[in-house]
C-alpha cells in the first residue's frame, strides 16, 4: 500500500524534523494564505494520519509517520492563529532561528507581553489615548492635552502618556509665544 519511496522519504523527514520550520513541515511558503495553510494541513493529514497506518506491519513506519504528523498538527495550530503566526515568523527569521523552530512557551509569553505593551492597560485610558493621538494629528493640542490628562488619571505611571503630554505642552507653549 505504501511504496518504498514513500517510506524512505518519510524516514528522512522524520530524522530531519527538528531542523524544519512549520512552513517546511507543511510544505508551504512563508506568505501562504489561511486557505493554503488549511489545504496543506488536509493534504498532509491524508497522507500521514495515524488511521492510515493503523494496520501497517512496520513499527518503524508507524512511528515515523506519527512523529511527522504530530509536528504537522503543531504547525497548523500555530500558523492558523494570526497572532501566533506573526510572532513565529519573527522568531524564525531572526538571529535565533535554530532555537525557535518550535513555538515555545517563551514565544507565547513574549507574544503576550507584546500585547501588554499596547498603549495603556485599562480600557478607558486606551480610549482617551487614542483620542489624543487623533487630536494631536489634527493639531488640536489643547484638546489632546485634556485627553492625555484623562488617560493619566487612570494610569498615572504610564511613561508614554507622560511623554505625549509633555509634547503637547511644548507645542502649546510654542503657540502662545
Amino acid at each position: 500500500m505504501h511504496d518504498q519511496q514513500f517510506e524512505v522519504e518519510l524516514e528522512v523527514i522524520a530524522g530531519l524534523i527538528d531542523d524544519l520550520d512549520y512552513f517546511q513541515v507543511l510544505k508551504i511558503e512563508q506568505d501562504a494564505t489561511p486557505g493554503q495553510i488549511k489545504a496543506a494541513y488536509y493534504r498532509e493529514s491524508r497522507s500521514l494520519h495515524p488511521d492510515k497506518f493503523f494496520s501497517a506491519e512496520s513499527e518503524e513506519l508507524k512511528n515515523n509517520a506519527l512523529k511527522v504528523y504530530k509536528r504537522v498538527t503543531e504547525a497548523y495550530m500555530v500558523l492558523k492563529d494570526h497572532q501566533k503566526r506573526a510572532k513565529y515568523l519573527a522568531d524564525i527569521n531572526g538571529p535565533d532561528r535554530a532555537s525557535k523552530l518550535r513555538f515555545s512557551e517563551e514565544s507565547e509569553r513574549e507574544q503576550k507581553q507584546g500585547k501588554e505593551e499596547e498603549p495603556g492597560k485599562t480600557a478607558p485610558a486606551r480610549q482617551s489615548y487614542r483620542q489624543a493621538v487623533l487630536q494631536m494629528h489634527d493639531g488640536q493640542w489643547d484638546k489632546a492635552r485634556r485627553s492625555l490628562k484623562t488617560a493619566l488619571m487612570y494610569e498615572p505611571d504610564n511613561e508614554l502618556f507622560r511623554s505625549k503630554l509633555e509634547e503637547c505642552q511644548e507645542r502649546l507653549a510654542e503657540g502662545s509665544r
Partner: protein
Amino acid sequence: MSDEIAVGIDLGTSNSCVSMVLDGMAQIVPNEWGERIHASVVSFLEDGSVLVGNEAKRNIITNSEFTVYSTKRLIGRYFFSDEVKKAQAVMPYEIVEGPNNGVRVKARGQEYAVSEVSALVLKEMKAVAERYVGVEVKKAVVTVPAFFNDNQRQATKDAGRIAGLDVLRIINEPTAAALAYGLGGVENQRAAIYDLGGGTFDVSILEIGDEGVFEVLSTAGDTYLGGDDFDDRIMNYLADIFQEQYNLDLRQNKYCLQVLKEASEQAKIDVGRYGKAEVYVEGICQAEDGQALDLVATLDEETFNGMVMDLVQRTFKVCDEALQAARLTANEIDAVVLVGGPTRLPVVSTSVGHYFQTEPLSNVDPDEVVALGAAVQADALCRADAEHFLLDVTPLTLRIATVGGYTEPIIDKNSPIPVERTRSFTTSRDGQDKVRIKVMQGESSREEECEMLGQFEFSGFRIGYRGEVTIEVTFEIDTNGIVNVTAADAETGQRTTTRLTLSSGLSEEDIEESRKRTEETELASRAA
C-alpha cells in the same frame, strides 16, 4: 487479520447500541428479540450471573439495590467529586470509596470498579454482535462524549479491555455521528453536531473538506446536562401534585422514587410524541391507614416546555462557546445534526432549528447514529486504506500545577490531535534525584478548579548541582484524546523512569483481575 470483525459501540448513559459494517454498509445489530437499543443497566442476580439491557431495566424497581445504571455519570470520577455525591443521594445501589479516591459499586457483597460495570454492558454488546454473525468479536471502537476528560476516556478504554475487547480507538460521539451521516460531498461544508444524551451534552463544529477530511474546529460540552435532567423536572412536578393531594412526598422513599422516575421518563416521551401525557401509576405508595394511593396527573406540552426551557437554553450557551472558538456565527453553519434520544422532543429540535436558522437533519435515528459512525470507523481501521480522516481536537486545556495552587497551560483546548508539547524542567536542589509534575485538565488557573489527571514522578536522570540538570518532559495527547507523559534527560537524551504516583485509574493488576472476573461472569440472558 483484516477480515476479522470490528464493531462500533455507543456506550451511553441510559442506552447502548452496537453496530457493524456488513457488505459495505454500517448497520445496527439487534439482539434475539429484535431490540436495537439496550438499556445500560446491569442487574446482579442471586446466582452470581448478571442481567444486562432492557430486561435488567425492569429490575431497577424489583431488584433495586443490586441493579446498577447510569454508571457513565461515575466513570473516571473521583469519589469526592460532586457528581458522585449526587449519585449517592439518588441511586438505590451502593456507591463506596475504592483505592486512590476511586469509585466502587457494591452489589451482593462484592465491590466492582465502575469500569467493570461498564465492561459488563460492553460484554453484552459483544455477545449481541457475536450471536448475530456467529463468530467471535474481539475488536471495537467505543465512543465517548467529546467533552470527556482524560480520566473518563482512560476508564472507558479500561472497560473495553476488561470486557475482553481490543479497543481500536476511542472516538467522540459527535464526530462519529458526522461520519455516519456521510456528510461531505459538498465541499467545505460546515456542520454542527448537537448531541443531547441521557447524561451529557456535547456540541462539535466541523468543517468537512473534500476527499473525506472531517476537521473538528471546536467542541464544547456540559457533562452535567442531559435527558435525565428533563426527567427530574417532571418528577418534581408530579411529586408536587401528589404531595398537594395526599401530603406525602414520593421523593422520600427510594422505591417510590424509582417508580416516579420511570413514570416521568414515559411522560417525557409521550409529551414529545403526542403533545400530552396522561400519568397513571396505580398504588405508587400507601397512606398511613394502609390505603393504596394512585398517582394521577396530566402533563401538556406547554407546561412541559416551560419546565425545561432553561435547560434547552443552557445548551445554546454551550453552542455559543463552540461557535466562538471556531470563529463562526450560527448562520454560517450549513447543516445541523441531532444526536441523542432527547433531541426527539419538539421543544429541543425546534429550538435548535431557530438557533442555527436551519432545519436540523434527522434522517438517521438519533439513538443509533453514534454507533453507526463508530462501526464505520472500526471498519476503516481494519481495512488497509482509510477513506476518511477524523481530525479531532482536545476538549480541555492540559495544564501543570505550578506553585501556590496555580496552574499553567501546556496544550490549549481545541488543539488538533495527536499533538505533543515539550517542556524543560531544571532541578532546584543539589543532588536532586526526582522531579514531580502534577498534570491536570480544565480552564481555570486555580488547581482546585481543574481535574487532576495524575502526578508523575521522574527519576533515573543524572545527579548534579541545582540548575545543572534539565529534563525535558513531553506531553502527548494521542488520537484517542488520551494523555501520555514521558521525560528524558535534555543533555543525554536518556529516557527517565516515569511513575504515576497519584491517579484515579486502575492499575494493570486491577484490570487483569477484573478482566478474569468479567470473563467468568455469566450473562443471564445468554445462559440458555
